[in-house]
């Protein structure tokens, strides 16, 4: 399919750029780790409370790190009128959206893969066997974040105070994802199983599907404005 081809092209370009310069990934990684350190100083977490608080703190760290990635997302396109060139080409706008979503998702997943175990080590947590299930929930949440975040990264592209405006608009709309992810992870840590968390997971999947579709349809108008 043409759309898929174009998406892969742009994605490949972004991945290659990132591989060579490693700007975003390193910055995001260090920022995420730094946040963990700050959380450790800011919050006294007794052992019994660790399971309760871990999901929230982790997800907070991912949110802020992810936002950092989002502000960088269209950076390459902003330089040298790249975006105008892309828009002049007959490329399907939606493929740009898809490529950016996948790119940001890729970055965030890489970071989560590292930060999750790091968090576990730094905060002396047990339940290592639950990490895969936790990661699955985080994965679904990250999709939601990337889907909406990419759209709003484009929306705030030419706005002043962009770094402040993006979270201001994005975070209230992300509340279902934040709640569902954190509660889901908490339930898994408490009970060790998925069963009670199903309604939250369904909400997450619903959110992902709805806003992936909406973003896919609307992106064209946003980027051409």
């Amino acid at each position, binding site marked *: 399919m043409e759309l898929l081809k174009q998406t892969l092209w742009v994605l490949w370009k972004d991945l290659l750029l990132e591989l060579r310069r490693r700007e975003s990934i390193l910055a995001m990684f260090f920022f995420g780790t730094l946040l963990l350190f700050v959380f450790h100083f800011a919050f006294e977490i007794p052992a019994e409370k660790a399971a309760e608080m871990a999901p929230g703190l982790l997800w907070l760290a991912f949110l802020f790190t992810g936002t950092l990635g989002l502000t960088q997302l269209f950076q390459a396109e902003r330089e040298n009128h790249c975006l105008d060139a892309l828009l002049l080409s007959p490329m399907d706008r939606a493929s740009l959206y898809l490529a950016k979503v996948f790119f940001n998702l890729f970055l965030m997943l890489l970071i989560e893969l590292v930060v999750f175990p790091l968090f576990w080590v730094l905060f002396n947590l047990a339940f290592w066997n639950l990490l895969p299930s936790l990661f699955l929930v985080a994965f679904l949440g990250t999709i939601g974040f990337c889907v909406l975040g990419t759209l709003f990264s484009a929306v*705030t592209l030419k*706005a002043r105070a962009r770094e402040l405006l993006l979270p201001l*608009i994005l975070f209230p*709309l992300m509340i279902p994802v934040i*709640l569902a992810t954190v509660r889901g992870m908490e339930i898994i840590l408490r009970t060790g199983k998925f069963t009670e968390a199903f309604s939250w997971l369904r909400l997450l999947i619903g959110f992902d599907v709805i806003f992936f579709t909406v973003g896919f349809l609307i992106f064209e108008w946003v980027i051409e*404005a």
Partner: protein
Amino acid sequence: MAGTMQKRGRGRRVTGILALAFILVGLYFALIEAPPDAYQGDVQRIMYVHIPSILTAYLSFFIVFIGSCLFLWKREKRDDILARSAAEIGVLFTSLTIIEGSIWGKPTWGVWWTWDARLTLTAILLLIFVGYLMLRSLIEDENRGAVCSAVVGVIGFLDIPLIHMSVYWWRTLHQPPSILRPDKLPWENVHPSMLIALAVNFAAFILLYFYLLSLRFRVGEMEEEVKTLKLYGGAS
């Protein structure tokens, strides 16, 4: 064209006068005629403005959604002005809802704020409205600002049911032990004049809302016309 404007202006004036009438009657019923609640006492009277406020806030959000959708589809300036006006008035009514809810909460629950579902949802609604307006003001290009805030308007509205669900689940699964259930209105033995008070105040708010919206819309239209005239110096 002049005829339509005049008809609109007249309709607006009629709405305004009706609103005033309903407001006055509503005040009478709310403060004098309706009896104090069996459980909450006189404090319950705040509900006669609180419930209409919250409904008006949601109505406003719906109009922002409609305006945004129409604008994204047809790109007519009019729809953008409608959305913008509804957002502005929506911020007003949403803020009032939160303030009323907080004032009601102090004697009822003993605290000025609690993270119960209703208050939390209203606060989130306010945040989305504010985001909409801030985006507008921070984007310099008029047209881009309109398109981008329309996107926020559409997505915000679509998100509301999901936000609703998640917040309600969160609150019902994590009920703090000592607090009573704040999202149930403890109205037993509803006296008829209480219902009348609520109905009249509800009508009053809706009428007032549409009066304000129509006025704000007209102001927006005229400001647009001024801009066009200044820009093109007489050619319309």
